[in-house]
């Protein structure tokens, strides 16, 4: 297993470098200029040219590429052209925020998705099943940024004017914490952060939860038709034990692979959700960097996203082996 993981990671290196080179070329080919946002009749062309020179943007593309690659390989992400500080410090600030948001969403996706899927499978063709199917499809079709705006409209804005609505369910529309966060007790900080997490993590995760529920339902239905489930029922085991103990483990198998599919999706979905909720994460960093043609920051954030996706896929493959004993990965000299 260890050898397999090491081999996969080594294979990922050329892949990530290839992605980065491609992104570099695309960025350079796209029209635009990081200094364009400073264009103004009172900023003379000479001043703009000097700015470009100060940032090394006047060099030919291949020179810029080699220079970037050199510093990248030596572990230096460079300095952001728009924020004027080391990109490493931007990443250090932003990555934990995105992981917090997508981690919470992931928990939500699987908890809600699996729970609903089981209920639907057990009560197949009931009114509840149909209602949940309809609801899931409805939610699944919503783009996350639109859902985010609707959540803000209802749970931050509309309920603000309803007197009897509990304060705990009036959510803040944006940001990661309140302005008095520093003054709060540690419990106060925890609830404040949680309060800010609710709307964005729902916006980010709920459509995936709906699709997990669909997968879970069909996977569960397949499993409960198997002979061994009939045997378990025949032994007189209570239905709860049959479903949760015997059926669940096998039904979860295909769901685990979804993890590998959803992680990258979560990161890309985070771009729009973070913009809507002013969540200071990687998504907003990459969004702003692309709009402002902040080339080094785009490269660094792309790198982080690429690595996250590679790792997510690897985790999914490993989990697959863990839950399904029939799967063995080559390597490790066992064959």
């Amino acid at each position: 297993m260890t050898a397999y993981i090491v081999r996969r990671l080594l294979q990922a290196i050329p892949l990530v470098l290839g992605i980065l080179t491609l992104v570099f070329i695309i960025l350079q080919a796209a029209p635009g200029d990081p200094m364009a946002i400073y264009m103004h009749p009172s900023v003379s062309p000479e001043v703009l040219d000097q700015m470009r020179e100060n940032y090394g943007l006047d060099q030919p593309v291949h020179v810029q590429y080699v220079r970037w690659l050199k510093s990248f390989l030596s572990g230096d992400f460079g300095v952001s052209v728009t924020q004027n500080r080391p990109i490493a410090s931007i990443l250090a600030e932003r990555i934990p925020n995105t992981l917090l948001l997508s981690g919470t969403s992931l928990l939500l996706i699987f908890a809600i998705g699996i729970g609903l899927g089981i209920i639907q499978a057990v009560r197949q063709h009931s009114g509840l099943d149909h209602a949940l199917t309809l609801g899931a499809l409805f939610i699944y079709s919503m783009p996350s940024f639109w859902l985010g705006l609707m959540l803000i409209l209802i749970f931050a804005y509309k309920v603000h004017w309803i007197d009897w609505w509990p304060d705990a369910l009036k959510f803040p529309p944006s940001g990661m914490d309140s302005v008095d966060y520093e003054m709060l007790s540690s419990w106060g900080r925890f609830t404040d952060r949680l309060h800010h997490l609710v709307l964005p993590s729902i916006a980010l995760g709920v459509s995936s939860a709906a699709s997990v529920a669909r997968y879970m339902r069909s996977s569960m239905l397949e499993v409960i038709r198997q002979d061994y489930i009939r045997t378990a029922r025949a032994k007189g085991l209570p239905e709860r034990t049959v479903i949760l103990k015997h059926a669940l483990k096998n039904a979860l198998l295909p769901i685990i692979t979804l993890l590998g599919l959803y992680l990258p999706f979560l990161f890309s979905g985070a771009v729009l959700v973070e913009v809507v909720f002013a969540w200071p994460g990687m998504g907003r960093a990459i969004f702003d960097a692309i709009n402002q043609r902040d080339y080094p920051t785009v490269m660094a954030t792309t790198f982080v996203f690429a690595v996250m996706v590679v790792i997510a896929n690897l985790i999914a493959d490993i989990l697959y082996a863990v839950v399904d004993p029939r799967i063995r990965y080559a390597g490790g000299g066992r064959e």
Partner: protein
Amino acid sequence: MGGTAIVAFNADMGRFNPLVNTDQNTNEVIYYMLFTPLVQYDESFAARPYLAESWDLEPGGVTFRLNRDVRWHDGVPVTAHDVAFTFRRAKDPQTASVLSSAYLELVESAEVIDSFTIRFSFARPHARPLDGFWWAPVPKHLLEDTPPAEMARTPFNRQPVGSGPFRFVEWEAGESLTLDRVADFPESLGGPPFLDRVIFRFVGEPATLLSEALTGRVDVNGSLFPHQAEQVERTPGVSLLSYPFREYYYIGWNVRRPVLQDPRVRRALTMALDREQLIDVLMYGYGRPAAGTIAPWHPMFTPIEPLAFDLAAAGDSLAAAGWIDRDGDGVREDEGGTPLRFTLMTNHENPVRVDIAQVAQARLASIGVDVDVRTLEWQTLLARHRGREFDAVVQSWVLDNFRVDPAALFHSSQADRPGSYNRSGLKDPEVDRLIETATGTTDPEAAKRLWTEFSLALQQAQPFTFLMWLDELASVSDRLRGVEMDARGTLVTIADWWIPPERR
């Protein structure tokens, strides 16, 4: 115990360094909170003493006497050496300082007379010479070791030590900026502010920001859009501020294009657009028709008769220029059969601009002009516009100071320079002459008359169709008092904002 006010904008700040900052909101923080410019503007846009407590103005230069009580927030006094250092850094081409091209073109040299007296010599005379000194010094003792080419990237820009009524506390990029009051700020500069603390928050999505403001979680929404104004007016506890601002929308014509080279054609295109209607419908009334580059609130402004909306006159003007629908297809042609057809570009991120382009397309179709509207991504549009690869473009400029100097936009010397701003390519001897004489006239009344003539000449040349001067909008929570805003900016009176004790 003055309380904390929360101000929100839709974008993060730039560099807290007057030498290298180019961002509008950051500029306001620099000018009204963190630093002390030599002069400040009053409500009538005349320069008044600030860091410079008095001055002697002569034709060849100006001598400033500085206030002796102003200190950097680390305790070091602000002196004429800081001012001279800032001037020299600004003038050094390596710094790539915006001060040099925005303010200091007319200023040749600086000479420190004593620690609190400094004399500047002018390169040539100017009607409003003090307009060249609306900038704040940076601390020499903290920045003299920074090479000029590194000035834009020095850590100081993210942790500034200023000299103004508020001191820097913390900046969490993309999230918030915290500034605290300076308790011993000199009375001669207005004294310490009332508020203990101002927190700026950055929320990119306009609808989210509106929710924050309407539910009282931010006190001032400084990035409010016209379509959101009515909702602010309907909400108890929040009030709407609207005031004339420094931004104008225009359609820029590329006069090098054969179909657009005749000024009669460009004037006809302007006459075919109902600007009042654009303002009413697209800006919800928050704007006023524009007829030139000088803002209606500026001391140098004289109202001129705008080219009136008149489709018949527009058609006549096109016919006079030789554009007649010769083959009956609804589009005018010239004698050689070339149709009057061009592309109008704008960026899709700004729905108002897209709407303007589409309204213009429909209006111009009715007088036999075939307009193809193309919406591009913002950076792509900027690159095309800058490279003169356009026929016509819907764009806007924001004046970043109170100098009147349209040379960059309309002087023929800028028409063919790569990267310059006369992107229309206008070469009009009369416009050139008026720009040159008006900027060099020292008598304000005479200068004002020349600027009126300039505006009329520009109207005849019509390189732009000036559409409207926008009003700036803000929402302000009722607990915050003393909030006044005008074309000087959102934060111009922030040192006088206060919160009643029971609502702190």
